């Protein structure tokens, strides 16, 4: 065929195609506009179903030369274009269109074949993901709550993984289905006995307590029923009390330290005046008798504690904080992160003594806290800030940190646990993002290398950052898997 004739034919075909498409899209736009006017949003059926099949182009397309312009009809509404995008995004192979009836049940052989099939890919972290941390200077151990597969891992306090070493093995590990550990986020060690208190953040509403020699998949010596979403833990050794933060309830709940089973708390700090909002870490200043609570910033309203507690619906407990099941609809609030300070024996709906909050604070998911009473300093594991920020215990308002530990030399990477060894004047940081626990002098500042490192994985091993993985979805535009943690 002559080139000009071909071009004319092609042009004519283009026009025909354009006319057909304009007609189709015009109809579609009218339908969609009609739907837009009808705020009852009733579906306007287009035939039987809304997405129809389309023909796959042959693998070998005939070569088409000539200028091709992207056609954009003036009448095409964003909605109709979006629908086309959606169809493309679905990436469906050609079919005869959505079926109107259920397909037949497969054979038993086919079912068995699918049921026993192994995954073709598995994204998982084979190494411990360090989350919460406690140090036992008396027994020279460091105890780390790891969130990857929910263990407590115990290392020698002076372990220092050489740069050339693959990793350091713990002295012992506690975990398994007998241990009542799930999503282990925080840990406390009793200085007198060496007992280890593990905190489960989600799905497991028990706080297990293990003897110092426990190892493996063991039953805890005792366990205490706690409200859902317990996160932070600190003990007041003078009063023999255990103080816990509850995310769901925006509260601090206090038990006797030896409480077990369904024992009642001795007091609760909860209510509007407390300004607690998604509390995480908690620390005790034994010199000034104050407690510090790190808040991520979101909360909601519910009846006052004075009207009675009433735990969450999973385990009705009138002696627990007012649960989420009693929250008022639409009452959510968003505030900047904060550290709220109270007298250590505060209870009920008590306002904080001080509030550290504002842009100068550099707080970015402040997750764990610890206090050095003699230095009069609060240390904050600033998760997404990849930093440790330090404040004076007397700080109030929009205060800037007095020191910041941050930078590539520090290996501080998504820190979620922090503690101080007062005997040896060392600051310990658990870094969820780098499989590392890092040890610094308490006065460390800036981009400084840690004095010791415990690594659970080879240097540079990526962390999938999975922790209590929930929903998964597929970003079809970027061919990425999205996971909510």
């Amino acid at each position, binding site marked *: 065929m002559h080139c000009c004739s071909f071009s004319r034919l092609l042009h004519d075909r283009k026009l025909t195609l354009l006319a057909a498409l304009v007609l189709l899209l015009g109809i579609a736009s009218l339908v969609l506009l009609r739907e837009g006017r009808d705020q009852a*949003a009733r*579906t306007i059926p287009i035939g039987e*179903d*809304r*997405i129809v099949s389309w023909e796959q182009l042959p693998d070998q397309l005939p070569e088409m030369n000539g200028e091709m312009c992207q056609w954009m009809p003036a009448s095409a509404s964003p*909605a109709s274009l*979006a629908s086309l995008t*959606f169809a493309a995004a*679905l990436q469906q*192979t050609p*079919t005869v269109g*959505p079926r109107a009836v*259920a397909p037949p049940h*497969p054979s038993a052989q*086919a079912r068995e074949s*699918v*049921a026993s*099939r192994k*995954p*073709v*890919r*598995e*994204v*998982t*972290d084979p190494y411990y993901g360090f989350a919460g941390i406690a140090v036992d200077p008396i027994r020279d151990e460091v105890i780390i709550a790891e969130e990857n597969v929910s263990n407590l891992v115990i290392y020698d306090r002076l372990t220092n993984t050489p740069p050339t070493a693959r990793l350091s093995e713990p002295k012992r590990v506690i975990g398994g*289905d007998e241990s009542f550990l*799930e999503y282990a986020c925080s840990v406390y060690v009793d200085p007198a006995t060496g007992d280890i208190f593990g905190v489960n*953040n*989600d799905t497991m509403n028990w706080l297990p307590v293990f003897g110092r020699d426990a190892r493996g998949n063991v039953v805890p010596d005792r366990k205490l029923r706690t409200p859902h979403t317990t996160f932070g833990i600190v003990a007041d050794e003078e009063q023999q009390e255990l103080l816990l933060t509850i*995310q769901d309830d*925006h509260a601090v709940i206090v038990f006797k330290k030896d409480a077990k089973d369904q024992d009642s708390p001795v007091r609760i700090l909860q209510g509007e005046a407390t300004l607690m909002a998604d509390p*995480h870490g908690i620390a005790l200043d034994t010199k000034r008798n104050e407690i510090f609570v790190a808040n991520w*910033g*979101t909360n*909601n309203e519910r009846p006052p504690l004075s009207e009675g507690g009433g735990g969450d619906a999973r385990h009705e407990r009138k002696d627990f904080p007012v649960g989420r*099941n009693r*929250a008022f*609809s*639409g*009452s*959510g*609030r*968003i505030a900047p992160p904060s550290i709220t300070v109270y007298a250590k024996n505060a209870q009920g709906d008590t306002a904080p003594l001080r509030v550290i909050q504002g842009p100068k604070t550099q707080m*970015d998911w402040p997750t764990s806290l610890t206090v050095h009473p003699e230095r009069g300093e609060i240390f904050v594991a600033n998760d997404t800030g990849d930093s440790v920020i330090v404040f004076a215990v007397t700080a109030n308002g929009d205060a800037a940190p007095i020191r910041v530990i941050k930078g590539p030399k520090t290996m501080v990477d998504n820190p979620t646990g922090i503690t101080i060894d007062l005997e040896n004047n060392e600051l310990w940081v658990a870094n969820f993002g780098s499989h590392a626990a890092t040890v610094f002098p308490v006065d460390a500042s800036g981009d400084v290398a840690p004095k010791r490192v415990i690594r659970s994985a080879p240097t540079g091993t990526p962390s*999938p950052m*999975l922790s*209590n*993985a*929930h*929903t*998964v979805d*597929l*970003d*079809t*535009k*970027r061919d*990425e*898997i999205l996971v*909510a*943690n």
Partner: protein
Amino acid sequence: MANGAAQPTREIAGQNTLFTRTMHDMAYNPVADEIVVPQFFAFALLTFRGDANGNVAPLRTIMGPSTQLNNPHAVSIDPIHNEYFVPGREEDWRVLVYPAKANGDIAPIRILEVDAEPGRVGIDPVRNLVVVSGGNRLRIYDRMATGKATPRGVITIPPSFGDTGTGLMRINPDNGMIYVGVGVGGRHEAADFVGVWSVYDNGVVPPRFTIGGPGTILKDVRGVAIDLKNKSVIVTDKTLNAILTFNVPEAF
């Protein structure tokens, strides 16, 4: 195609995101190229750009007294009709529906009342159906159902599968197959699975396929996604703390 100890290609995290720990749900909207996340402390629905990365603020936030949101821990998207579906939690046996493009303190445009605590919601925008999980059942409603509507069908998992609970799900718009995470018993036994049913099923019906179990690998199944292009089902498991991809063309 991530595998093993893969580093995330991007992370949406940090103070500006308004997230808390353990976001229980999220959904990608392929039409609008957006991600929606329910925030169960702030009683909010946060919508982000599809390519969001880092410590970024949401594009839009549905939040306030008119929304009636209460502990929203789940959300599903109807990308064709541009709607968000939010199941209630615990004593709140409702499904609230919002325009996906809404912002601020807006009332739900529909409220579906169901006869049990809703687990999660799946949308079939092709057949105009809403599937609500919860307990050992999948309740199937018209997409536009409102008030105390009668389900078009109720799929009940046979007792032979044990003490089952249905959770997160996706629906294949091509053939109306439902892929739903089914928990069985505790969190340490490999008893869970992803069950596959049809939206046309009704009554006590065994799954057409079970993926990842029971008795194979899944211990505490959570999220389910479907990859239509590769005919794969992608699953998250809390106990394994893993993302697993099963290639199951038979189930597509």
